């Protein structure tokens, strides 16, 4: 497995990349050869894809990420997360597996969580009465994604917190 940190220039060059809907899978051998030919480009593509995934998640939640995932339910994130912010000062770690068609991505981030005071307890009722139906908090997390190469792009197989 090779591990490289992508740089911003790579991502800027490929920043407009968004994954296209999953096309017919090309033969694994061909995909692997393609990835092996230019691993830095593959890693940059993954990094760009994940930035787009986070952007879409913040804009519309899991549903907005449908085109970037290989199937439903791969965004394995706690339900109380309302937004994710990738740590701007950090670079993602992107590791291509030896098979060249799977990869592992991770990035430090801030998770904005929202706790709704929607229960029957008196404390929650009184919080709602005061105009505080929920509270948000932020915590440092590490986002982790497992990726798979498709015909002309990468898709997310699982996105979760480390």
């Amino acid at each position, binding site marked *: 497995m090779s591990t490289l940190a992508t740089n911003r220039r790579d991502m800027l060059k490929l920043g407009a990349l968004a994954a296209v809907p999953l096309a017919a899978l090309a033969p694994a051998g061909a995909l692997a050869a393609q990835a092996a030919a230019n691993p830095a480009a593959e890693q940059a593509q993954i990094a760009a894809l994940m930035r787009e995934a986070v952007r879409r998640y913040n804009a519309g939640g899991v549903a907005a990420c449908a085109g970037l995932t290989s199937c439903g339910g791969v965004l394995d994130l706690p339900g109380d997360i309302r937004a994710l912010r990738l740590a701007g000062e950090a670079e993602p770690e992107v590791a291509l597996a030896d098979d060249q068609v799977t990869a592992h991505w991770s990035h430090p981030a801030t998770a904005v*969580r929202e*706790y709704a*005071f929607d*229960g*029957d*307890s*008196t*404390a*929650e*009722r*009184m*919080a709602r*009465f*005061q*105009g*505080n139906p*929920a*509270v*948000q*908090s932020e915590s440092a997390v590490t986002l982790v994604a497992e990726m798979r190469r498709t015909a002309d792009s990468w898709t997310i197989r699982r996105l979760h917190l480390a």
Partner: protein
Amino acid sequence: MARKAYPDIPLFRYAYTALSEADVAQKLAPAAMAGPQSIGALEELPPQRLSFVASDGTRLDWQFSEGRQVALQGERGSGYGALTVDHITLIAHLVPGTRRGYALAWDRHDNRATVFELWFGAPGPAPQPREVNRAIWHGHIEGGTPPTGELHAPTGRVQGRAIMWAEDTGNRTVDYYASSAFSHWVELDRSDEGRGYSGPSDYIKLTEDLYLYTRTEAEFSGLWHMLVMDANRLQCAGLRLGFDGLDNLEYYMFRGTGEWLGQIANFMKFEDVSGDPLAMPDGPKGARRVYRPLETMDKMTPAEVNEAVAASTHIFDRASAMAGHGLPPTAALAGKAFAVHYDGGPVIAYRFTAHDELQWREGGGEWTTARYNAWENMPGVFIFGHLLAGKPDHDGHVVVADLDSGKATCFRGYLNTPYFANEAGAQTMFGKLVGDGIPDPGSARHERTTDLLGSAFTWSYSPGLTSMHVYSSPNTVSWVIFTPSGHGGAQWSGSGDYVKIRDQLYFVRWQEEACNGTLGTILINMRTMHDSGIGYHCGKNGLSMSPVGAYARLAGRWDVAKYLGTKRGGYAV
């Protein structure tokens, strides 16, 4: 129910008359002409015109004349009262032929002024004509040197204080100012019970020394009580307006002297001295957030309770926001067996068959399997709870068992109480444990305590979900909900009981009567500043027993023992 001016039953049980606006007007009419009563002499202002201009441009003109007569905006004249504390003069009057009056706090040094319009009935936010509405303006009195700088304003500076005010009427009250939007008070002379109550309040800074405090006894009599307090000299002058339990009009001014009872910590940012955290600036005249828990409480009959319990009972089977910071349940009772012999009560035998399953039986009866949760809050001391299925009142027992001393105490929660069948009643039962390896305490028992009296603890249940308990009297627990800014916000209170388990370990319960109906129980470990407890609740969503657990902070303690230490604790309902 005996009708009394000051009921000898909890105020939330008293059926205050639904006075009509006409009733109110009739009672106000003679009082308006006479002006407020007073034990001591009221002051007389020299004949003059006073013009108040508020920051929003509102203008009020009073013409004062001899014989303590005043006319507002050319309306009919009426009697007024005036009392001065240091350089603040409090003036009060009613407007004849109306259901409204005014209270003016006038700084004689710089002409800053605050005006309260007080009125009964529509239009206004109060749901009953007997409850006083209030609207507030800050401004100045024209003439002389106009004030510079800030006008009077709501403040958080009073928050955290407690003062015992002794009025010249002979009435003494312990006022707890634990919130910047509510207050809690215990009448020492009008009621023998020593029970505390909570209501919406205003706190307005006049000067560094002088503050305005008001409270409305919303949800009860609807009475208005206000005072100008000199925090340094502990002097006050006040106004009381409204109707007592016999519907007699109380319209009087008073002087008082205070005793400083202490100051607890505040939790706003250090530089934040702002007030009125529950303001509704865009609301209609007089609007503010008045917590009215009875309005939102499920009110059920015994038949509805039985139906709800049968349809939905949740015993420790779901997460609770009230226990997000709680300790994990312990499995240490699994495999143990003992019986609890309650003094003058049942003998309940237990076999703990798993970490969350026990069998119990009363006397020599059949064993019943029940789900339970337990926490070992201090080594050797367990709190556990379970439902006693089949009991006609759907009893839930929350037991603190000290396996090292052999003592046990139970807060028994039950339903089908007289006022609302889903409102939890509570009974405190003292007893001892009988089982292998458990010492026999003989006649020794856990005992009621006033160790916590006057203390305030904050509780962080889950991120952002916090409260502060005020252990305000031996039979009262009050709770304050913090706003996001850390101000004390809404506050309410109910019957409470306090039992000492060990040094720095206390078993406390409160009943949310006429307010959600929950029985709250917690075992407070002051050494770890963590509690473990159980909430017992029934509503239209069914019956539940759920965990309570929070991080604690000691906010402080007021010295109220000499006024409240002899009051009785541990009411059954």
